[in-house]
């Protein structure tokens, strides 16, 4: 049976077919569709696969580890920066080891289509010393998911599954394989889960002891394929060596094939297959490493082959240092002719994304701008979500956007330094993801900040997923110690805006923590709900 699937959907279906019992995730482009697919899939429902959204990537990672402890197969999904949020649990899950198979999926976003950086999750895999899978195609993504679970159980460690935007959000036909049974409930009784120093030291030695087996598995893996060297490559051979060997990782392999390169080592499973790399090097005069993201493999290959061997890639400028790969920059690096299109059009303007017409964030920004203009020192610290677009015209309200939750804590730090008025704006889902702890710090310090939780009752930027704190915000803020007289819920519609503007003024002038919660449903989810 063949199905037309997004890369994300192929990953989801691959996990379901591999006997998954639970997916744990926080929405984040380009990973969101994996969990959404599992939530809607009839087979997943029939199998009782746990799939509700988590509060953040750390809670997701820990819950998945708990499911693995109980013997079942669990999947954690996130965008690349989510790896930073769950890093503590992630790195330590390699030390505890796993019982049921545990796969951690990180969807990287080279070129930052919807992200604030282009960090490469493969560094995390190396850091935690666990195997990494990096599929090139949707078909491979489906198949590899099952293999990743098998390898996780065989090695007793989590496996990192790394994809990039272009695979996650590209559609192709996928042949669906065999459906596996789910694991039986079988909780671990091992002591290795208690990472007290004495035990952790033993566990760490055990993890290092597994490295040789992981390397051997990658060396033998059919996903690390040294292609036969075709005769025509021999035309300009020097001392029997082809002029160029190519190491193509993950999706880069597609661009290398598109350009018609030969003498290629395809890499889709890590740790790196050192023997195959040395074999390629022995039959080539130099090596070009083609990898999407950061030069992780290029650095390692340099170390493997030594300073005397010529290795090129993103570090040497053969490929661009930043941004995603594409068929054109890869063809150019391979010395192949690139296509000639028309020159760029003259009558062209950038069309950045913007807040939807009627969106409640618009009203909030208009009110904030009005009040902020009255205070020469005012700064508004932003956060991650649709409302980050408040940094762009026509609003240009925001002074910062760093990471999930940073609005409140940056406002607090700036206020500590004497900045006034320090205002934070954060969305409802981002607040429960990582804003609550910062608000507790501010309350405990009696910081002079005004926090706007712009509540649209959903996780809007990623397409309208449920938000963990809906209906709980007043209780959360009060529980954290916000004073009831400085906690306000308002409805940001035109007739109320004058009063809301006045309220913002009043709370700015209060010397302490104030929280204003403008609450109005997202226009996108409203339209969806009214259709039903």
């Amino acid at each position, binding site marked *: 049976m063949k199905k037309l699937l997004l890369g994300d959907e192929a990953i989801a279906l691959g996990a379901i077919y591999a006997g998954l019992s639970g997916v744990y995730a926080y929405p984040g482009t380009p990973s969101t569709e994996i969990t959404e697919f599992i939530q809607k899939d009839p087979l997943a429902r029939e199998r009782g696969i746990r799939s509700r959204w988590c509060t953040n990537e750390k809670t997701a990672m820990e819950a998945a580890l708990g499911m693995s402890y109980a013997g079942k197969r669990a999947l954690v999904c996130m965008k690349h920066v989510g790896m930073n949020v769950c890093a503590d649990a992630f790195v330590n899950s390699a030390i505890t080891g796993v019982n049921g198979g545990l796969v951690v999926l990180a969807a990287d976003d080279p070129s930052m289509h919807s992200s604030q950086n282009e960090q490469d999750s493969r560094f995390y895999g190396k850091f935690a010393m666990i195997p990494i899978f990096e599929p090139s195609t949707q078909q491979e993504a489906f198949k590899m998911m099952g293999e990743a679970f098998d390898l996780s159980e065989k090695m007793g460690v989590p496996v990192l599954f790394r994809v990039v935007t272009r695979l996650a959000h590209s559609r192709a036909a996928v042949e669906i394989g065999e459906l596996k049974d789910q694991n039986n409930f079988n909780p671990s009784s091992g002591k290795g889960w208690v990472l007290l120093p004495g035990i952790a030291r033993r566990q760490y030695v055990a993890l290092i002891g597994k490295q040789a087996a992981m390397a051997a598995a990658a060396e033998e893996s059919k996903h690390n394929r040294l292609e036969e060297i075709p005769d025509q490559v021999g035309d300009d051979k020097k001392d029997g060596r082809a002029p160029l060997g190519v190491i193509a990782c993950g999706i880069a392999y*597609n661009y290398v094939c598109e350009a018609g390169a030969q003498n290629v080592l395809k890499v889709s499973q890590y740790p790196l297959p050192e023997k195959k790399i040395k074999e390629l090097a022995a039959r080539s005069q130099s090596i070009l490493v083609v990898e999407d993201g950061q030069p992780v493999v290029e650095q390692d290959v340099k170390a493997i082959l030594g300073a005397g061997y010529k290795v090129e890639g993103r570090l040497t400028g053969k490929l661009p240092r930043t941004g995603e790969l*594409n068929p054109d920059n890869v063809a150019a690096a391979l010395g192949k002719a690139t296509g000639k299109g028309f*020159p760029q*059009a003259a009558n062209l303007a950038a069309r950045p994304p913007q807040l939807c017409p009627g969106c409640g964030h618009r009203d909030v920004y208009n009110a904030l701008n009005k009040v902020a203009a009255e205070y020469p020192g005012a700064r508004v610290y932003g956060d991650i979500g649709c409302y980050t677009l408040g940094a762009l015209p026509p609003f240009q309200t925001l002074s910062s956007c760093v990471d999930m939750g940073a609005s409140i804590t940056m406002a607090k730090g700036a206020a500590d330094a004497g900045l006034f008025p320090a205002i934070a704006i954060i969305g409802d889902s981002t607040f429960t993801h990582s804003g609550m702890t910062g608000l507790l710090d501010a309350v405990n310090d009696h910081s002079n900040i005004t926090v706007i939780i712009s509540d649209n009752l959903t996780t809007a930027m990623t397409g309208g997923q449920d938000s963990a704190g809906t209906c709980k915000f007043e209780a959360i803020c009060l529980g954290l110690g916000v004073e009831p007289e400085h906690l306000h819920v308002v409805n940001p519609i035109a007739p109320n805006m004058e009063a809301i503007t006045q309220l913002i003024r009043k709370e700015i002038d209060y010397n302490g923590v104030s929280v204003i919660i403008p609450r109005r449903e997202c226009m996108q989810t409203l339209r969806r709900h009214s259709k039903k």
Partner: protein
Amino acid sequence: MKTDIILCGVGGQGILSIATVIGEAATAAGLQLKQAEVHGMSQRGGDVQSDLRLSTEEIHSDLIPRGHADLIISMEPMEALRYIPFLSPDGAIVTSSKPFVNIPNYPAEDAVIAELEALPHVLKYDIESLAREAGNPKGANMVLLGMAARFLGIFKPEQLRAAIASIFAAKGDAIVEANCKCFDLGYELQQ
């Protein structure tokens, strides 16, 4: 045989629906297909684009190389211009002629149209008005697909019509008919 198509427009204009219909036709015809989509931030009123590659042979790259697109299908005239570096020298552009102005620095409309007209093989029309007159204002994208059909040599028009029927089947016969009608109106437009 291969056909590389760039679909483009502004977030919310329905370019992914066109992609879905072509994808359905391609699957029914047993063609290979790869389609890179835009999800996430750009969908909020920004420019959106999708690379759709069809072939009788294996397709490697999810993205279309520069100068290789056989066809640009655009819901908006300036957005069609954005991707001409990807258009092959003998490629065609099928586009709505009506600007969607949601930015303060949108170029002069006449200049956009003139630049489009200076390119070879351009078919443009006010598809929104045509769809509205046909009583199906949401069918502008199907008018555009109809216009594109003459450049999609890899399919017969009947195959695309059948794909529309299958994609919209769940919404009932009236919706299928309204969309097929829009497709036909687009197909009958002369250059």
